[in-house]
């Protein structure tokens, strides 16, 4: 059917495009994006950076953490399954595969990195690399 395009359609399309651009992080300042799974919080604890992510319902073996220089990659697969022959009333949780890379504020001493997974929260303690610490220079 032939349809005249209305000014309103154009306007709505524009709004959609703006929304899409906003969520895509294309115009963001960093190469890593915000809003993909899992959500990450970074904290500073003295010289260490602590990364936390909520990834409930996973097994330790299913989470991989990789670090190179100041880039950290978290990947894994979350499987949500139910007994066979069950009927579904409500589904809000999702099975998913994720792989997320994030830039850290400083280089990391890889040998000292500690990661643990407890109560569905992944916590990675990232000590600052010796080469990245500011050095005090003695004045003679």
């Amino acid at each position: 059917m032939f349809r005249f395009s209305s000014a309103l359609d154009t306007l709505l399309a524009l709004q959609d495009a703006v929304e899409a651009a906003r969520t895509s992080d294309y115009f963001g300042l960093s190469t890593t994006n915000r809003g993909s799974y899992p959500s990450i919080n970074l904290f500073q604890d003295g010289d260490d950076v602590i990364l936390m992510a909520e990834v409930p319902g996973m097994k330790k073996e299913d989470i991989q953490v990789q670090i190179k220089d100041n880039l950290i990659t978290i990947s894994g697969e979350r499987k949500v399954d139910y007994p066979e022959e069950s009927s579904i009333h409500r589904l809000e949780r999702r099975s998913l595969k994720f792989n997320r890379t994030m830039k850290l504020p400083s280089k990391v001493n890889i040998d000292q990195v500690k990661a643990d997974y407890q109560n569905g929260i992944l916590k990675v303690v990232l000590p600052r690399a010796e080469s990245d610490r500011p050095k005090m220079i003695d004045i003679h």
Partner: protein
Amino acid sequence: MNKEQKEITVQEKKEVQTQSEPTVPGKVYLPTTDIVETDKELLVYMDMPGVSKDKLKIQLEKNVIAIEGEIDATPYSDLKPLYTEYNIGHFSRRFELSNEIDQAAINAGINDGVLLLTLPKIPEKQPRSIAVK
């Protein structure tokens, strides 16, 4: 943005809207929940990251089951946030049960931040296949 990327985006945590005020400080979120039914029971799965077994409170009053999970905020108190994408808070959600549930036999367990509630059906209410003579 392509479709695949869209699917992997996280659901934003939803804050609980209630008339009554919480007694613990901090934000309260709705845990994402799955409910599935088998012949014998109703299974409720809830994502409650950060909630340990001893901080979980499940109360049953009349036909309403209330699940409350408290998180321990002390590890965060000394940390300076650098970059944050999610808020932390307690979890709370309530569900109304039907009469089909055997309330005395409800079972709960939490593992890796996922609560599993098992609500068995009363035997008489379980589906039976009827033999045709």
